[in-house]
């Protein structure tokens, strides 16, 4: 397990060794804040909350996280470094966890850099900091779930474009399952408890709870299970 650290460090710093990190962070921040202001009506809502930031995140992550996760294994396969990595004295699990945690930490860094928005809200009004913290926590967990799926898909191909497209599609399905508009359509012909069940498989209902400041162990368990399942399959796919 101690072998996770060197893999983590290499991967995390790797983002900053190329323009990828800067491009990604700038796009991430511009898009998050831009959506909150221009689509979410940050000022018009006249509320001291970050609701207008968080409401778009499931949609924003749909494109941004596959972009950050597509390279995780595809690049190693394409460059042949996967052979180098797996002939070093570490287990597949060490490598999978090291890489996943590094990419996750990078995404959390991006998320954390939206802090001026929180400060603005605090300066203009009197927000409920618990709700804001819950939103950030939920957003970080949701990013982990998106990313774990993208890491798995990236291990299946050496083509980053394929990894990206697969990542968007799989995550899109999981966003749709929990999207209220989609669920509204389903209620037209399915019983309510079936629709509830389907909605619970999606990201949004679990994230919404966090964004409202509700910390339900079931929501932790949901994101935790998605991450654990995807990473387990990631190990299996690499050992195949």
């Amino acid at each position: 397990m101690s072998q996770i650290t060197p893999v983590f460090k290499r991967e995390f710093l790797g983002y900053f060794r190329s323009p990828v990190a800067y491009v990604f962070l700038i796009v991430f921040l511009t898009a998050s804040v831009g959506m909150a202001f221009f689509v979410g009506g940050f000022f018009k809502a006249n509320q001291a909350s970050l609701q207008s930031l968080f409401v778009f995140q499931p949609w924003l992550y749909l494109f941004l996280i596959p972009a950050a996760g597509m390279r995780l294994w595809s690049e190693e396969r394409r460059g042949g470094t996967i052979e180098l990595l797996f002939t070093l004295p570490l287990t597949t699990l060490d490598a999978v966890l090291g890489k996943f945690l590094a990419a996750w930490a990078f995404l959390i860094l991006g998320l954390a850099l939206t802090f001026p928005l929180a400060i603005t809200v605090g300066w203009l009004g009197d927000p409920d900091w618990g709700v804001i913290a819950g939103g950030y926590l939920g957003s970080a967990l949701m990013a982990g779930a998106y990313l774990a799926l993208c890491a798995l898909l990236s291990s299946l191909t050496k083509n980053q474009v394929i990894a990206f497209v697969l990542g968007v599609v799989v995550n899109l399905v999981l966003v749709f399952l929990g999207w209220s508009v989609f669920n509204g359509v389903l209620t037209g012909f399915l019983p309510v408890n079936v629709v509830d069940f389907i909605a619970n498989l999606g990201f949004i209902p679990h994230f919404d709870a966090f964004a409202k400041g509700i910390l339900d162990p079931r929501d932790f368990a949901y994101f935790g299970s998605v991450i654990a399942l995807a990473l387990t399959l990631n190990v299996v796919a690499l050992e195949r």
Partner: protein
Amino acid sequence: MIEVKELVKNYGDKRAVDGVSFTVRPGDILGFLGPNGAGKSTTMKMITGYIRPDAGSATVADIDVAKAPVAVKSRIGYLPESAPAYGEMTVQEFLNFIAEVRGYRSSATRRERVELALTRTHLLPVRRQVIETLSKGYKQRVGFAQALLHEPPCLVLDEPTDGLDPNQKNEVRTLIKTMSTDRAVILSTHILEEVEAICTRIILISRGKVVVDETPDAFRARKPGARLDSIFRDLTSADA
């Protein structure tokens, strides 16, 4: 030191390696010869634990690769074909990463290891250069430095002189010779002069089977006066 018994590997219907057995002792430099696609690289990948054999076993220092892959990997220095490395890192950063994974956790011992590897492979002038900007010869040396860094008792080198100019080839051969005194070395090549120059034993593999296992002198004695290529052609013409 390295013992290979009845190794078998299939790729689909094709049997890439078909019951290969041999032993390499410390001080041996085993030249692994054969046409492209004969199964040289596949055999090496099984010894280094990168792929799993379908049957048979490979042991390094009496440890079975299939049972304790991490223990075996820590005793092998492996140069994969075309020397893959993380191109966005500098030579020094890359070797630092390798040293850390290889278990040199204090920065003092790590620095010492990296310095020694850089000196030995004459990489000092390019230590702060990004690997992807290096020439092929330098990249190959980075691969070497990575393989030698932890003073492994076994070295597995897949086409170590491929793509190098004559001076660089000579330099790499000298390096291998000096490294081999108390180590078991396997190197694959299809350059026959190389075998003559440094190997203490020849294994010729054709269509996944060992056809010849003898000293270079005995190999030459097969057809006195003939060039090695002509003996090689006679023995492997079935492949064409």
